[in-house]
């Protein structure tokens, strides 16, 4: 068995989330990770009027030159929409605003935003990316919300960059969307607790050598007064926060952006369709229903650490 050795680690706030970076390697890579996450937040936050995403949304209808990072983000968001048949839709910004999520979550609290009048519609299939000119064109009247996939893709970028810079292994966790690559300290696996959305403690604990974990939950990022709670998981079929009988879906996939796309699409699909989606994608996951029941995919047991915490293998 591998000897447990403490990693170099750093915690900070960014992208409206708790960030946790673990490095099996030089500790001086930790501030590099923080700088990179903060740089990506400046590029992608929809709450910063000068971010690339905000400017892109403001220029909808016209092409806009973007950074390679943003080009990669939009391309992956469209890929996610395509492979899920639109169940994952990165252009639900108007619906999110109309649901009241029109400011950062720290500012929103239990209140309700005033974005009810947003005229924005959806239209991921009409978004165009021109890699040759490094430009993106949003259709007029369509807005991009990169929130979830932005965290997953940011984790991907930072992990790969720190590995290239000399880290033997890295794990980057952005608010529960995490990516790991290379061995954990001591040569072991990366062990991750999947928090139960409705109870105290983990729903499961998993170990992975490489890959990503993302959780979409209607419990997190919920807002509004008691009796009128809303959450950020918008069903593109209705334009409203989804009620699918699920409280949360956690997905284990190769990359952070893939895990994020699949977690959201599986949540929106409900228990049976969600599980089928993960199986077809070659990914695994754990779906938790509104009563707290845990429903793993067929291959989820391969990832369980310890005694499996009662999750069927």
């Amino acid at each position, binding site marked *: 068995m591998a000897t447990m050795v403490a990693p170099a680690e750093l915690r900070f706030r960014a992208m409206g989330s708790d960030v946790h970076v*673990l490095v099996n390697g030089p500790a001086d890579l930790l501030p590099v990770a923080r700088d*990179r996450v903060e*740089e990506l937040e400046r590029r992608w936050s929809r709450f910063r009027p000068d971010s690339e995403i905000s400017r892109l949304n403001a220029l909808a209808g016209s092409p806009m030159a973007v950074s*390679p*990072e943003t080009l*990669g983000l939009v*391309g*992956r968001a*469209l*890929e996610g929409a*395509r*492979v*899920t*048949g*639109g*169940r994952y*839709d990165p252009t639900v910004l108007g619906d999110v605003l109309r649901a009241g999520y029109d400011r950062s979550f720290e500012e929103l609290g239990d209140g309700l935003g005033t974005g009810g009048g947003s005229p924005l519609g959806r239209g*991921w*299939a*009409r*978004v*165009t*990316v021109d890699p040759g000119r490094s430009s993106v064109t949003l259709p007029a009247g369509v807005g991009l919300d990169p929130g979830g996939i932005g965290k997953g893709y940011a984790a991907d*970028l930072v992990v*790969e*960059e720190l590995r*290239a810079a000399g880290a033997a292994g890295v*794990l980057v*966790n952005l608010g*529960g969307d*995490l990516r790991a690559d290379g061995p954990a300290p001591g040569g072991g696996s*990366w*062990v*991750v*607790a*999947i*928090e139960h959305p409705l109870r105290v403690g983990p729903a499961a*604990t998993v*170990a*992975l*050598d*490489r*890959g990503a*974990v993302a*959780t*979409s939950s209607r*419990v*997190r*990022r919920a807002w509004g007064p008691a009796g009128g709670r809303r959450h950020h998981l918008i069903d593109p*079929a209705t334009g409203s926060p989804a009620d699918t009988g699920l409280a949360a879906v956690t997905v284990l*996939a*190769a*990359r952070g952006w893939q895990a994020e796309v699949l977690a959201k699409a599986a949540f929106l699909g409900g228990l049976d369709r969600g599980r089928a989606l993960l199986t*077809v*994608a*070659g*990914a695994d996951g754990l779906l938790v229903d509104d009563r707290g029941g845990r429903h793993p995919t067929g291959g989820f047991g*391969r990832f369980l*650490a*310890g005694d499996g915490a009662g999750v069927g293998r």
Partner: protein
Amino acid sequence: MDPTPTAAGPRRPARRRHPAARSRVVAGTLSAVLFLGLGAGMATRQSSATTATTSAASSSASAQEDTGSASSGWGATPGSSSDASPMTSSQGS
């Protein structure tokens, strides 16, 4: 193209292409299944012209993929730790 150049951080080495092709196959299979069943309602609302445009763009995104691992498709690689304590947690976003 390289999606990760940065002024703040290091650059990645050159990428291998064959895993990207494998990723595209998985994505294509998933897309076909979803178009036939799970996502039919939404998928049929996409026009063929615009889908073609998006497919071209997203193919470019797929071409950027570097799986960098022995895992196939979109799957993660299980670990072997059986009794280790969690190092971090996924609580949902």
